[in-house]
């Protein structure tokens, strides 16, 4: 962990602390105050973008747990998100539960469902497990499309959260639910990564045979990784459902699962800051295409609006290819190098 030059840990508490210096505490408080003010000072578009970004961060944090830390490749994250979204919608609409109970319950329900997704990891790994999780995606989406309780092809209308008579029915209001929850779940993930469980995940990822020899129960930890990952996806799905106020089978496609994997690659596998880097780069790139394409089509009329607007997917492909070739360890690795250089500042070496 990076500390300014000349700062030393003097006791165990300091050594394990996530926030280590008064300056960092100050920056954290300032950042939190800044975040609180965002809906007051930023446009509706920025707020809604931050909501989507935060939900994506939660999903990708879950994926980081199972794929980045534990080494179990999963293409089922979009489907698990759908499970969480539908679970929350059903808990609220059919069982009359409040949003505040439905969201954690949906996460837990998705976690249990994810154990099914994780079950094949007992026998298979790598590419084969990836294919198995794709199968889980399709089975899940088939169930969503055909079960009576999910509203079949018509989906479910979801009510916005409320406290008493105060309804969280705008993006600005939802911001105060989504962003704190994202921060809380980031803290949870960061914390988990440095516990025995987190270290066991890394051991399983790096060499499962060696991990087993050291006494790590492979199957238990692999399933645990899937449970945690799905819990995150479930919570994200529930938030998404209450934000958009509709659950629809076509909201959660396999393409989303691919995007999430892409975000991990760009950000850096096995790193919590990497999740933020990956999500921000891909989502911002996407928004830039949205903003820039009208200019492109007006300056180059022969291109037309449609091909210009369709640049998004190509941009994603190019970014992914460049990162795989030039920086396979992702932006998080680059961030670590920058921090290491700064640690010795003002000394050159």
């Amino acid at each position, binding site marked *: 962990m990076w500390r300014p030059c000349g700062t030393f840990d003097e006791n165990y508490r300091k050594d394990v602390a996530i926030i280590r210096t008064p300056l960092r505490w100050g920056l954290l408080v300032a950042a939190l105050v800044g975040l609180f003010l965002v809906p007051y000072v930023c*446009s*509706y*578009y920025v707020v*809604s*973008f931050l909501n*989507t970004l935060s939900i994506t961060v939660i999903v990708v944090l879950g994926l980081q747990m199972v794929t980045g830390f534990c080494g179990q490749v999963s293409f089922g994250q979009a489907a698990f998100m759908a499970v969480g979204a539908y679970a929350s919608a059903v808990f609220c609409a059919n069982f009359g539960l409040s949003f505040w109970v439905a969201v954690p319950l949906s996460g837990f329900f998705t976690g249990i469902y994810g154990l099914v997704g994780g079950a094949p990891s007992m026998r298979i790994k790598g590419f084969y497990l990836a294919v198995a999780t794709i199968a889980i995606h*399709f089975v899940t989406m*088939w169930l969503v*499309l055909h079960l009576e309780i999910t509203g079949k*092809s*018509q*989906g479910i*209308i979801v009510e916005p959260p409320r406290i008493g008579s105060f309804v969280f029915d705008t*993006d600005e209001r939802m911001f105060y639910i989504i962003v704190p929850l994202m921060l809380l779940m980031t803290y949870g993930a960061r914390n988990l990564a440095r516990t025995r469980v987190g270290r066991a995940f890394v051991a399983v990822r790096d060499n499962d045979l060696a991990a087993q020899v050291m006494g790590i129960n492979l199957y238990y930890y692999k399933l645990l990784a899937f449970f945690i990952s799905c819990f995150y996806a479930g919570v994200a799905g529930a938030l998404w459902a209450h934000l*958009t*106020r*509709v659950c*629809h*089978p*076509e*909201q959660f*496609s396999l*393409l*989303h699962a691919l995007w999430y994997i892409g975000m991990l690659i760009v950000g850096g596998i096995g790193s919590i800051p990497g999740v933020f880097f990956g999500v921000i780069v891909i989502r911002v790139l*996407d*928004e*830039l*295409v*949205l*903003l*820039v*394409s*009208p*200019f*492109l*089509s*007006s*300056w180059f009329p022969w291109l*037309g*609006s*449609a*091909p*210009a*607007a*369709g*640049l*998004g*997917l190509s941009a994603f492909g190019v970014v992914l290819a460049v990162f795989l070739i*030039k*920086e396979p360890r992702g932006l998080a690795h*680059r961030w670590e*190098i920058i921090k290491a250089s700064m640690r010795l500042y003002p000394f050159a070496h």
Partner: protein
Amino acid sequence: MGRRWIGWSVALITVGVLGLALLPLPAGAQGKEVAFLDLSDFTGPVAGLALPSSIGVEDYLKDVNSKGGVQGVKINYIGVDTRYDVARALSAFKSYARDQKVVAMEIVSTPLGKMLQPLTRGEKFVCMVPGDGEFQAHIGNFFPWGPTYQDAFAATVDWILEDWKKKGKTGEPSVAVLSWDSPYGREMLRGGKEYAEKKGVKVLPSELFPPGSLKHDIYLTRLEKAGVNYVYVGGVDPTQTNVMRDATRLGLTKDIQFISDYWGPSSLGISLHPEALEGMVIVSYFLRGNEAQNHPLLKRLWATYRKEPPEKMNEGYGMGVGTAMTLAAAIGDAIKRVGPDKISRDEVYQSYQKMTGLSRDGILGPCAYSPTSRRGSDVVKFYKVTGGKISPITDWVKTPDAVSLHKW
């Protein structure tokens, strides 16, 4: 190399983006103008239809603007590739939702329409969408481009009964839907089934498959065993082409008549697979084949803005032009009522409801929007693929109201 490379890349991208953003807007966007937001799938499973349609919208609006706009007001076209991805569509929608210059929008896929509907409920913001019957059943701000899916299916039921009689067959014909396993794939039967049963046509259980499927043998074989006479194929082409290719190979096209819904193959698709599509009937609410490619307005726009021969025109282009003609007419009506400075979403919404009977130069049937109707039109035409060409076999036929037969 690594660190320097990253640094330079980031700097270049930043400078490029900032440069683009700081440059002035093009001339067309200055002066009095309103905007039309097109949330379309330029890539993804329905791109084959959405792309030509959106190009049609854009070209027509370009043409209107080149002549000074609608009574001096230019209509700025904003195209966004939503990629059949609802998260993307949501983000794009929100980025423009509060821009009051955007007076109307279109959403070129069923899932996006269904997702955005709750978010715009209660607003008087015109959203043009595909033909889901629920937008007619629950009158609001969503306006299907043409007849609803179930109304087009009901018109097909009428055509089936006539065809059955013409062939001298007795008893009741049977029809089955073979379509995508998605909300869209089921939509035509919500009311369409009730209509068919009322008219004495037996509706067999549907065969639904995931969008993107390449082989359909199992579904086709099951339908054959069930004794189906007519198969109504849903999906956006090349789905219909793939289905017909399999049906031809299985030898089913001799005894079973295949009918495509209005997102079926274009002339370009037919020219690539003439043998497979031979004999297929297509129900359409916009002109197809030579009728579209030789239509004077479409031909002129295509030559002016695409600079290609008319044979290269996908008929979805005409559908887009028709949509844009409705938009321009509604904006014109709103300007007449309140003047160019007071034009707003509300006013355009009011005008859309007065477009009843608007002619789109015969590219689409007369407009049927009214305070009680959200149908873009209530007529369809039947075409047949013969010798690699698509030719009309009926004139415009009025579609029955199947939406009201369903319990919503």
